[in-house]
């Protein structure tokens, strides 16, 4: 086993293209993600119908040539609405994740390199924040501020920040204990330099995995909020809102309810497949 490993490792280092090591499941995940990101960018231009156009006389129409996924409760094209909804589901979740990783990651690395009082204060603060269930914080903030795209991005970002802080701090603490960081510190380098030049390059792989996990969490939280009617508000609709507005068709098994949910499922499963099959150096501990 170990002999085989070392042989394949030698072969891998001899080969210039290491990407070919990604297993099939990981490739499938990457393709699904690429498809949905593309749709989030160009969705409105490739959608067969206008987002609000009534194209079917009946609600909850069956599949037909002009309407590949049937029609929704008002007779609008489900496929077009899903393609256009992609930019809300993916855009809001991605923006929130970036913001959370930026805040949590920066503070996490700062806590790791400065140690002492700053580390303790930040860790205690985020430990306390993490003790509030995520859906509860979201509901309380939305009750107070109402729901808009910017409130949603901000709320989800704040909810994701403590988890990002924990992961980044744990990763940075490991690097921070190594000799080259100690040398840099003895040289008299400041916290900003230590974070930028010494810690960040050495944790880049695992934190990308962390980004994927938090993105999935953001997509699920956003779609749950939209499903409860507290997320993206009409006339705009993300995939969670699409499930909600067509929920009356559930008793008939209408495609308009199922397909947006399938869209969410493919995206989150795709990210999970990719993350689970990344080479070892990318992996990080899986925790929220």
């Amino acid at each position, binding site marked *: 086993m170990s002999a085989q490993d070392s042989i394949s490792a030698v072969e891998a280092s001899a080969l210039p293209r290491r990407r070919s090591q990604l297993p099939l499941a990981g490739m499938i995940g990457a393709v699904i993600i690429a498809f949905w990101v593309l749709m989030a960018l160009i969705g409105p231009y490739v959608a067969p119908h206008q987002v609000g156009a009534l194209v079917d006389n009946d609600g909850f129409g069956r599949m037909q040539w002009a309407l590949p996924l049937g029609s929704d409760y008002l007779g609008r094209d489900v496929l077009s609405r899903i393609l256009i909804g992609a930019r809300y589901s993916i855009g809001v979740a991605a923006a929130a994740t970036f913001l959370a990783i930026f805040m949590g990651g920066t503070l996490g690395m700062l806590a790791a390199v400065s140690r002492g009082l700053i580390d303790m204060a930040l860790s205690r603060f985020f430990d306390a924040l993490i003790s509030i269930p*995520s859906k509860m914080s979201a509901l309380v903030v939305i009750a107070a501020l109402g729901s808009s795209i910017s409130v949603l991005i901000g709320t989800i970002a704040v909810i994701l920040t403590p988890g990002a802080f924990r992961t980044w701090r744990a990763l940075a603490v490991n690097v921070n204990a190594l000799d080259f960081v100690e040398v840099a510190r003895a040289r008299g380098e400041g916290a900003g330099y230590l974070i930028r030049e010494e810690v960040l390059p050495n944790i880049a792989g695992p934190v990308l995995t962390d980004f994927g996990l938090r993105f999935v969490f953001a997509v699920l939280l956003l779609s749950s909020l939209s499903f409860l009617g507290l997320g993206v508000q009409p006339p705009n609709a993300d995939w969670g809102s699409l499930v909600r507005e067509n929920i009356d068709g559930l008793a008939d*098994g209408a495609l308009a309810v199922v397909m947006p949910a399938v869209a969410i499922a493919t995206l989150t499963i795709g990210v999970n497949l990719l993350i689970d099959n990344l080479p070892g150096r990318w992996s990080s501990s899986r925790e929220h």
Partner: protein
Amino acid sequence: MNIALVRLVAIRIALALLTLGFVSVAVFVGTEILPGDVAEALLGQNATPEAVAGLRTVLHLDQPAYVRYFLWLGGLVIGDPGRSLVNGVRVAELISSRLPNSLMLASVTAVVCVPIALVLGITSAIWRGSVYDRVASFLTMLVVAVPEFFIATLCVIIFAVRLRWFPALSYATGIVSLDQFFRMFALPVFTLCCVMTAQMMRMTRAAVIDTLRSSYVEMAVLKGARPIRVVLTHALPNAIGPIANAVALSLSFLLGGAIVVEIIFNYPGLARLLIDAVSTRDMPLVQACAMIYCAAYLFMMMLADIAGILSNPRLRYR
């Protein structure tokens, strides 16, 4: 039980109460931070200044925020979190009509899914790497990765639309027969069970595998003990702590998952009350419901930690 153990558990309980205090401040600040005056909003534009001032006094809005916080907290502790801003009904009354339904759903789900998850988790840990383990791991990954309403939608379409075994919606009204009771609960419980079992199984599997990797298990294998004996007498007693921890942690997710499931099946529980309160900005109701959910979550987290402390023999016999 000895003094050190009692002390550890007492510290954990005190920590939970402290965290609950922090959560109550967060919930209060979160709901009171909004601009605008509740009294003016309630009375509308035609209200006389005297009426607004009167209502402000009744609602304690003329007092500083920290006084209002302690008034609110005191009311919460004695079971009187005020009146609903929307219809004036006492919040305690609204909650007491819904809370038993939610607790019922949660406890039925827990009773059903804990044994299933334990059996699946332990067996797939024993046969890790086998086809059975890979299929189970893949399926649970799918269930954990998709939103709860996707599972609920699938359940309705399979069991209510195609097979017509159960009604798609559940209404709990008055006294019902055992048969009706079962049909009403079946789909919400089944949906929740899928989600909970998947999570609990993953965590149980990880906990048992962690134990199976230890050197005393390797020793037991090397001395020739049969696999069943290795697992039952050597590995499991030491894995009880991590397993109990995993079960309690997964059960703390039960409430968050139950919100979506209660809404989709139209189940008359606490979640519908909370969601309606959020959409109408009925703050006293939002605060009370949020505190109940947070307290239940913290309680389960505390149980998880205490289970870990109690099952660790190194702490018990120190």
